[in-house]
C-alpha cells in the first residue's frame, strides 16, 4: 500500500508553515536558520512528491539544486552569525539592526 501524494503535500505545507512562522516569531538567529532549512526542505518534499506523481525526474533534479543553494546559504549565514556573536555574545536577530533607515 502506498500513501497518496496529497498527504505528502499536506505534510510539506505544514512543515513550511511551521518554518515560516518560526522565522517570524523567533529571535534566536540559530533557530531562525533552522526554520529556513525547514522551509527549504518542505519545498524539497513538494518537489519530490510531484516528481513521483508525475513520473518526472525533473523534480528530483530541482531538489539537488535546492540542497546546493541551502548548503551555500548556510555557509554564508553561519559566517555572518559568527561575526555577529563575536561583537556581542548572545545576540538576537533584533540586535543586528544597524542598517535601520
Amino acid at each position, binding site marked *: 500500500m502506498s500513501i497518496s501524494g496529497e498527504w505528502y503535500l499536506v505534510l510539506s505545507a505544514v512543515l513550511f508553515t511551521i518554518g*515560516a512562522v518560526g*522565522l517570524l516569531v523567533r529571535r534566536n538567529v540559530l533557530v531562525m536558520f533552522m526554520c529556513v532549512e525547514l522551509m527549504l526542505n518542505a519545498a524539497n518534499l513538494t518537489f519530490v512528491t510531484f516528481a513521483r506523481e508525475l513520473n518526472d525526474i525533473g523534480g528530483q533534479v530541482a531538489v539537488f539544486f535546492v540542497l546546493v543553494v541551502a548548503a551555500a546559504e548556510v555557509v554564508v549565514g553561519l559566517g555572518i552569525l559568527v561575526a555577529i556573536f563575536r561583537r556581542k555574545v548572545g545576540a538576537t*536577530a*533584533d540586535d543586528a*539592526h544597524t542598517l*535601520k*533607515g
Partner: protein
Amino acid sequence: MIHAAFLIPALPLAGFAILLLCGRRLGNPLAGWIATGFVGASFVVTIIVFAALFARSPDTRSFTQYLFTWFSVDRMNVGVGLLIDPLSMTMAAFVTGVSALIHLYSIGYMEHDERYSKFFVYMNLFVFAMLMLVLANNFLVAFFGWEGVGVVSYFLIAFWFGRPAAASAGKKAMIYNRIGDAGFLVALFLIFEKTGSLTYSVVFAHLSSVGRANLIAIALLLFLGACGKSAQIPLFPWLADAMEGPTPVSALIHAATMVTAGVYLMCRINPILHLVPDAAHTIAWVGAATAFVAATAACAQRDIKKVLAYSTVSQLGFMFLAAGCGAYVAAIFLMLTHAFYKALLFLGAGSVIHAMDDEQDIKKMGALRALMPITAITCLVGWFSIAGVPPFSGFWSKGDVLMNAWSVAPALWGIGAVTAFLTAYYMGRQYYLVFLGTPRWSSAKEHGDVAMKAVDHESSLHPKDARKVMTVPLVVLAVLSGLAGFLDLPFHPDFVFLERWLSPVVGANLAHHSFSLAATWAFSLVDAAVALVGVGIAALVWKSAVDRKAIEPRFLYFAWFVDWTYDHAIARPSKVLASFAATVVEMKMIDGAVNGIAAAFRNTGTKLRRVQSGYVRNYALGVLGGAVLVIAYVVFRARG
C-alpha cells in the same frame, strides 16, 4: 614679375612668425627693425607687382594668383587666391607704404615700452591680415582678413591693458565690429545661396539672376559690415575710444588702413551697388550724416587724439558719400590722400604727446612750434591737406567727392561742404591750441630758478622734436600729403590718372557727371573758399583764446550723446534683463525646478525610510507577504 604677388602678404606673415618665436630675444630695437624690414620688403614687392601690372594693357590688368584650396564642402569650394588688379594694388601699395613708415616711427615711439617686441608682432600680423583682406579674390578670404584686422585691432587698442580704459575700449571696438560682422556674414550666406560662389568674378557674373530685393539686402548687409569696420552711423562710437591704443596704432589702424576696409569693400562690390542705386544712395546719405556728426563732435574735443579720431570718422563718411554716389574713384582717391595726411597728423600728435610727457589735452599745450619745428611744419601740411586748402591733396580729393555728391543730390553737396568747412575749422583749432598761442604747460622756466632746484628734473618739460626714426616718416608723409592730389586732377581728361588706372575695375559702373570746365572751376573755387574760410575762422577764434565754452558744448564734447543714448537704450535695459535672468529666471525658475525635484525625492525618502526597520523579521514578513500575493495571483488567474 607679377607672380611674386604672393610675397606681398607672405612677408609680413614671415615677420610675424619670426617675431612671435624669438621677438623677445631679438629685443629692442632689433625686433622693430626686423618688423619694419619685412613690411618695407612687402612694399617693394608691391611696387614691383604694381609696375608689372602697369606694364600690361588696361584690358588685361587683372590677374588671379591661385594659391591653394582652403576647403571644399559639397558645392562650396573656397580657394585662397590673390586678385591682382588696379584697385587691390592701389590699396596694397598705400597699405604697405604707410605701414612701413609707421613701423619705422614705432621703433622710436615704443622704445621705452616693456612689451616692445610684442607690439611689432601685432603690427606685422595686422599688415598681413589687411593685405589678405585687400588682395583676396573671394569674399570669404576677404572676410578672413576682415576678422584678422578686427582681432589685431582689439589686441592693439588694449595693448596697455593694465589701464582699465584701454581694456574696455578694446572690448568696445570688438563688440561694435561684431555687430557689423554679423551683417557681413549674412550677406555672404545670401550671396552663396543666390550665386553658388563666393569668388568676386563669379558672383559679379551672376548678378542678373539674383533678384533686386536680394541685391538690396546684400548691399545693405555688406554696408552694415562696413559701418562696423569703418565707424559709420550707427556704429561709430568705438573709434573715439580706440584712441586708448598707442598712437602709431591709431595712425595705422584707426586712420590710414583698417577703417578704410569698409570703403574698399563698397568699391569692390561696385557691380552690385550699380544695380541698386537706392541702396547706394542710402549709403551716401549715411556717409554724409556721419561726416557731419563726427565733424561737429571733433570741434569740441579736448584730447588731441580724439579730435583726430572724430576727424577720421568724418572723412570716412566722405568716402562712403563718394562710394554711395557711384564715385568709386573719388572714394579711393580720398582714401589714399586721407591715409597720408591722417597718418601724418596722428604721428605728429604722437610726437607732441611724447614731447609733452604723455599729456593729451590740447588745452594744456601751446606754443610748441618754435620748440618742435619739424613736427609743427609737417602738421601744418597735414592740416592744410585735410582742410582742403589748394594745392594740398585734400583739396583735390574732397573736391572730387563733392562734385559727385552734387550730381546725385545738391543736399548731399551742402552737407559735404558744411562738413568740409568744419574740418578746416576744427583742425585749425587744434593747430592753434597745440602749436601756437601761449604755452600752458609748466616748463622749468616758469618755476623760476629758486623753485627749479627743488623741482625734480623729471617733472619739468623740455619739448623737442623726436629722433630721426620718428621725424623721417613725418617728412615723407608730409611730402606725400602735399603732392598726392596730383594723382587725379579734374580739369582735363588727360589728368585723371587715378580714374584711368582704376577704370578696369570700376569703369563700367562709375557714375559720370558732366560738368563743364567752368562748372569744375566754380566747384574748385567754392571748395577752396570753404577751406580758407574755415582756416580763417579758426585763426580768428583760437588765435588768442583757450576756452570758449559757447562753441564747445557738452553736447558735442560727448558726440551728440550717442554713447549715452546707447547706454540708456541698450546697455542698461540689457543689464536689467540680465539681472532679472540672474535673480528670477536662474534663481527661482531653473534653480527652483532643480531644487524642487531634489526636495520631492528627499521628502518621499524621509517618509519611506521607516520601512527600513533593520529587523530581519520585518523583511522576512515582507518577503512572505509578497510570495503569498504572487502565489495567490497565479492561483486565481489559473482558475479564472
